[in-house]
């Protein structure tokens, strides 16, 4: 693996890590399996791209993206809580609706940002090499988001979210409105996913309606890799583990891309298979080691 590929994996891991934190919030904390993310990631990208091409400062465009994602998440949660649609179905409905909405927002399926201002320009102007600028920007964003979420879950509102996920009956009996809590939590989660999408679009030079496909798969894989390898004893540890899980997942892809043995080369089409095998190795390695020590 080249230095470049490794740096690229860290960069991708951090920017998708913001999405993974959002997924952790719904999937683990709220116990709400939310597929909206496949739509809210490109939603954030679309909103940010349209804002930037209309002359909005790239940093402000992130606020719009966050807000749009929040609304998308709220819609899923309202469908679920107020209209009693099963959470999975509610999120699928929002997700497929967002496909059309994203095309509407962009006025087409794809907006190129290759010549436009992005959040990296400030750093690039100082002369930092591009490959480090991405890691710096995404690292700061990912850490701020993690810190915010950990802090937030310690506030009274955050405690209510934790309790709603653990034991909704108990929290209702304490006089908390679980509907409002779920709407806030799923909204916040999708806001983060949209923020991640906006940063991804600015990083890859285009917003595309197809860029969200497979987001939930990458998100869940990262969450579980993080939990298995790094543990989840405290809230802070769990969220940092989710972020690291995202980096490990991207490393697996980068490694799969550069694998080569003498006399035998993989076909480019083997990529997904190799990625899966590498993730499996990462997940079972701790177990095997434990058994070897015991034996």
């Amino acid at each position, binding site marked *: 693996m080249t230095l470049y590929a490794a740096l690229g994996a860290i960069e991708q891991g951090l920017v998708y890590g913001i999405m993974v934190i959002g997924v952790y919030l719904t999937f683990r904390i709220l116990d709400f399996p939310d597929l909206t993310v496949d739509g809210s990631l490109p939603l954030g990208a679309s909103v940010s791209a349209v804002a930037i091409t209309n002359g909005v400062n790239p940093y402000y465009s992130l606020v719009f993206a966050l807000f749009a994602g929040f609304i998308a998440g709220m819609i899923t949660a309202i469908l679920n809580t107020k209209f009693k649609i099963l959470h999975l179905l509610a999120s699928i409905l929002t997700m497929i609706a967002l*496909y059309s909405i994203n095309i509407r927002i962009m006025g087409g399926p794809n907006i190129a940002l*290759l010549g436009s201002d992005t959040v990296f320009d400030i750093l690039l102007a100082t002369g930092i090499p591009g490959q480090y*600028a991405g890691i710096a920007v995404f690292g700061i964003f990912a850490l701020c988001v993690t810190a915010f979420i950990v802090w937030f879950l310690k506030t009274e509102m955050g405690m209510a979210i934790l309790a709603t996920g653990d034991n909704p009956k108990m929290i209702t009996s304490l006089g908390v409105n679980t509907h409002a809590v779920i709407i806030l939590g799923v909204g916040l989660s999708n806001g983060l996913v949209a923020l991640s999408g906006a940063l991804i679009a600015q990083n*890859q030079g285009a917003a595309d309606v197809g860029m969200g496909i*497979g987001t939930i798969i990458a998100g869940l894989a990262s969450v579980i890799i993080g939990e298995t390898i790094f543990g989840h004893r405290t809230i802070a540890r769990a969220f940092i583990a989710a972020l690291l899980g995202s980096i490990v997942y991207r490393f697996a892809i980068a490694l799969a891309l550069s*694998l*080569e043995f003498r006399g035998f080369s993989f076909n480019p089409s083997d990529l997904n298979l190799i990625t899966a095998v*590498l993730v499996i190795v990462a997940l079972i390695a701790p177990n095997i080691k434990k058994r070897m020590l015991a034996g």
Partner: protein
Amino acid sequence: MKKLFSVVLLLCCSLTVTSSLYAGGYAVSVNQFVEHPALDAVLQGMKDYLKDNSVEVEFKVHNAQANMPTANQIAQQMIGEKADLLVAIATPSAQACAQALKKAPAELKRPLVFTAVTDPVAAGLVDDLEAPGGNITGISDLLPIAKHLEMVLNYKPDIAKLGVLYNAGEANSKATVAAIRELSQTMGFTVVEATAAKTADVYQAAQSLIGRADAVFIPTDNTIVSALESVLKVGVQNKLPIFAADVDSVKRGAVAAMGFDYYKHGYQTGAMLEKILKGASPASIPVEFQKDLELHINSEFSTMMGLEPPQKLLDKAAKVYK
């Protein structure tokens, strides 16, 4: 801490795997967006041109399996590879490579050649087709859509309603359909659109055109072409002729298409690669379009879809599948 073991293991094996060392000749890294027959043919054509002209090139091919984050990661991977030149097949891969190059340090900035990209200007790859100016140039697969429609109307003159089947999420297709709508006014037919967002929706979208259209035209749309067989099934069962915009689809069963072999597209790309590898600057190489167009007909499927191929077109065809 013990759980860190597996991460360390993963990191260790990643560091022991080094990128391949190229021995002699040139090295080219390829970012292909997805496996499908047309794009695979481009890659093959490119390789064959260089072989036929004895330019020694070692190819390193990556395939994103239609996943945009992966295309992006591949682009970054390619920056670190020892390549003299980067090639991107299809628009998403080209955009990913262009962005990775933009961020790369000066000593790693290398020429990028794109191919199978329909609208390089809208995709943000070049500002000017005639004088790209930067380190990016390539070959566009934009087809003169008027020639296509002319052929379709010659083949089946009584078309009043032409169905167009595409994915509204693909920028290329959207541009093509806008052009078809504009031409329909002067050519005397109306356009009936049906869209499918993913390959699983294609069959249903094709069925929605039964009875609403006299024939169906499929632009070079990745989603529809990937699921072409389901459209053909609808065509055969309902005697609804299906026309395509790429000749590879004719081989699979579309009635006819004007166009080029994507293999030739790749061959032409190969010629551009040779020029740049031997020292020409991409800044001064204009974006090229596909040179020779030819007509391909599938007379077997044409008959099955209730349409006997007209003799005068059969005489003109470069290839007839029976």
